[in-house]
């Protein structure tokens, strides 16, 4: 009798009513995927490297025991901050990637309609998918909790910071995951979902603070680096409760600040805001999923037909004209197929136009903000712009190149392409050119920024050549590497995860380890030069060195011989700080990357006919 009365309560707290059997199914599948365990292993390794680097970066360690003990609180703060920020960004990236094919997979395999013929409702489908992936993220976050608890013993970090950071991170991951899930309903390809989600998150995390900063007359950098400005402005602090990056910055600033919390800061409010925003997105997803599923049951495969019918007659005719038109295959067929699809797809390219207009308007706003704050005079502002374009370009390049073969494998079209008379190099070249063509808008934004500010006189003209050299090497390398990873994997999601982890490992974690090793070796001799050279391979470092030397009004008017480049640890290279040796070094790195890109392309070609489905 007692068990009968407890059972409904037990069932309620199992959340079965909310997640349905889909949650169990997803957990079973994920427990069988070896890649999930690799992901956790990679996460732990990266975390350890970060923590190690944070520990050793605190120079105060050197000295007497008494002195070292007295600085333990500072070390504790540094380590906790590193872990928290690492988790904050990693959790959101993983959420976006893991949920990028959550619904589209069901649509593509035609199981969504089948699910709707069972007692499972659309809410359970959406929540089941979301929770099952979030559980993976929760496990990753939980991995670091013991480290945080131990490090807290050093002092200097309150429980409040650890708990608040955990919930800020979790709600940010829920929000990012919800966006990705919503996009996956109407986009078959995971890479399109990832790009769209990153774009939306970029707008919310970066553009919104810029506009707020413009309104308050602050420079962007003041918000994220010198949080004190924000804390001193109660209204600005209140507004940043809508922004996870902003709230995390304030939270960290308060932890580091001896004065403690501000009156206008209350992290649970931010978490509630994020959960409400996620709930709205999920409610929309529930509605759309049901509609899509019902159409699939009815055999109406064209998911956009209702949207078309809702358009005015005139627009509908135009749309039909566009949709009905058959375009001729011109040029190399693989390139034609790759290039015919726009970067961001929409039913009538409206999304493209909206996206392009939004990007241009946002950029203009940021330029205006920088102009009124005299930021354009400063080299670091141009470094931020160029760095941002390069990072976006790198992300696009990785995602597009990595998905170019896996998306064909997922749609079972790959073996068909391989049995045509196209030779493998032709397919490879078509794919590579297709990736370049799709990324071109981002690289054009970069070059346009450079050209415009060179003409106006804010950047030295040599920047165009030097940045182009850096970007060329990066494009060739990432395209070759991405296509190779794509030829290895069957699923786009995992191919993207593997690529990002590899790139982060190569450009971020290896330099950190080398830095630590060099520090142990007394920062001299071979180790220092080797570290300096490896460090210089990072394109963001190259961009930093170049833009620091050539950006801003002061540098733009210097003669070539007066330009000075500040390479780190390359003291053995004669005159490396001057323009010609630097350009030669950049050219050498470009050839190095291009060679590796070509090597990976060759490896990819050899893998074309293996692991085909």
């Amino acid at each position, binding site marked *: 009798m007692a068990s009968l009365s407890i059972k409904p309560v037990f069932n309620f707290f199992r959340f079965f009513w909310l997640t349905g059997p889909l949650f169990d199914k997803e957990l079973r599948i994920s427990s069988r995927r070896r890649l999930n365990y690799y992901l956790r292993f990679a996460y732990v390794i990266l975390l350890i490297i970060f923590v190690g680097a944070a520990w050793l970066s605190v120079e105060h360690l050197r000295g007497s025991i008494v002195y070292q003990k007295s600085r333990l609180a500072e070390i504790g703060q540094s380590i906790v901050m590193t872990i928290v920020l690492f988790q904050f960004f990693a959790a959101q990236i993983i959420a976006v990637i893991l949920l990028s094919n959550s619904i589209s997979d069901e649509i593509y395999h035609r199981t969504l309609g089948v699910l709707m013929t069972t007692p499972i409702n659309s809410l359970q489908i959406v929540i089941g998918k979301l929770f099952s992936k979030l559980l993976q993220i929760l496990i990753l976050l939980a991995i670091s909790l013991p480290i945080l608890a131990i490090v807290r013993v050093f002092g200097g970090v309150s429980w409040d910071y650890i708990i608040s950071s955990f919930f800020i991170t979790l709600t940010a991951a829920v929000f990012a995951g919800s966006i990705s899930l919503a996009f996956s309903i109407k986009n078959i390809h995971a890479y399109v979902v990832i790009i769209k989600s990153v774009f939306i998150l970029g707008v919310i995390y970066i553009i919104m603070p810029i506009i707020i900063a413009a309104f308050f007359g602050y420079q962007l950098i003041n918000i994220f680096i010198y949080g004190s400005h924000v804390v001193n402005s109660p209204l600005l602090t209140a507004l940043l409760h809508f922004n996870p990056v902003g709230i995390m910055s304030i939270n960290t600033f308060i932890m580091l600040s001896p004065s403690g919390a501000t009156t206008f800061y209350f992290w649970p409010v931010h978490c509630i805001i994020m959960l409400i925003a996620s709930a709205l997105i999920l409610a929309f997803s529930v509605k759309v999923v049901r509609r899509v599923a019902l159409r699939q049951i009815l055999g109406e495969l064209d998911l956009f037909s209702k949207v078309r019918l809702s358009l005015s007659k005139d627009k509908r005719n135009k749309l039909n004209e566009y949709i009905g038109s058959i375009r001729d*295959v011109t040029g190399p067929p693989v390139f034609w197929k790759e290039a015919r699809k726009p970067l961001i*797809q929409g039913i009538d390219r409206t999304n493209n136009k909206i996206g392009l207009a939004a990007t241009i308007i946002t950029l203009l706003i940021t330029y205006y903000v920088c102009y009124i704050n005299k930021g354009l005079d400063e080299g670091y502002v141009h470094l931020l712009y160029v760095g941002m374009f390069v990072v976006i370009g790198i992300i696009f390049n990785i995602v597009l190149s990595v998905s170019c073969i896996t998306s064909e494998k997922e749609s079972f079209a790959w073996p068909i392409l391989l049995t045509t008379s196209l030779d493998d190099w032709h397919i490879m070249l078509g794919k590579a050119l297709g990736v370049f063509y799709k990324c071109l808008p981002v690289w054009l934004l970069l070059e346009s920024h450079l050209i415009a500010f060179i003409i106006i006189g804010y950047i030295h003209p040599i920047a165009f050549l030097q940045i182009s050299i850096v970007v060329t090497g990066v494009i060739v390398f990432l395209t070759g590497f991405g296509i190779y990873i794509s030829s290895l994997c069957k699923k786009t999601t995992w191919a993207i995860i593997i690529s990002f982890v590899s790139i982060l490992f190569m450009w971020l974690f290896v330099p950190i380890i080398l830095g630590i090793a060099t520090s142990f070796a007394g920062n001299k001799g071979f180790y220092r030069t080797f570290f300096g050279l490896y460090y210089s391979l990072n394109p963001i470092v190259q961009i930093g060195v170049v833009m620091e030397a050539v950006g801003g009004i002061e540098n733009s008017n210097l003669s070539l011989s007066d330009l000075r480049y500040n390479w780190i640890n390359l003291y053995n290279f004669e005159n490396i700080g001057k323009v010609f040796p630097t350009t030669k070094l950049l050219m050498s790195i470009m050839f190095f990357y291009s060679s590796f890109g070509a090597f990976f392309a060759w490896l990819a070609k050899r893998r074309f006919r293996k692991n085909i489905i």
Partner: protein
Amino acid sequence: MIETKHLTKVFGNLTAVDDLNLFIKQGDIFGFIGPNGAGKTTTMRILVTLMEPTRGHAIIDGLDVSRNGQKVRRVIGYMPDFMGVYDDLKVFEYLEFFAAAFSIERSKRKSIVEGVLELTDLQSKKAATVDSLSRGMQQRLGLARVLIHDPKVLILDEPASGLDPRARIEIRELLRELKRMGKTIMISSHILSELEEICDHVGIIEHGQLVYSGTIEEIRPRLGIHTKVRVQVADNQEKAIELLSALPQIHQVQTNKNYISISFKEGENIDGLIARTLVNANLDVIAIQPEQIKLDDAFLQLTKGIVH
């Protein structure tokens, strides 16, 4: 036209194709039959250059597939068991893309595409997106794609799977038409009755080994399968059964509602013996008809259905 010599493919501990020797004549329709996991798809993937054999050779139109992949691909048309679609290409664009992939001149592509659309009865769908087509239409599109470069050899992996009876009949008619056009066709299927109607030769494979290759008619004597006849008598069926069961040449007698089914060893002239026996016993014989051996029966007899 298609030949394999000691073809072997090993995946780790698993031998998917084991010393397979096949020969398919030009213009034949060859049915490739086997239980799931028998090695049919692996054999086909080797033939279409998607896989390298571990040992042995596969030859198509005199070309070794391992050494002349590029040339072989011009000769063959391959339709895999899963229809690969490019989601937002239209039917015409899809076919034109593959025409371009086979280096067909741009000026000729349109007429060729129109031609295969007509052959597969897909003209009305040429502006539809590929993923909006029904399964049957997609299979037809798959066949249209396979024909785009006018290959000599068609290798079709389960082309009729998942289709309704009407679509299956349409595909069968299309294959007959292709045979008339002189194509050599290798087709795998689980719907054995269909292969029976269109194939000149069949090959039955299990555990990667060819357990039978030849015509359907040859299966019976080659494998010692008993031949069956149906005997109908006007009345006293019990007496007829008693008499026939006593004959040493007869292997088995089965009774049905209206007839008696008798199986015996191939080569015996049994019809006269049955007639004499029954007439001598004053029984009225209505009919003595041979019973056709079904491919399904041969398949069941030859294979154990054990999956790797």
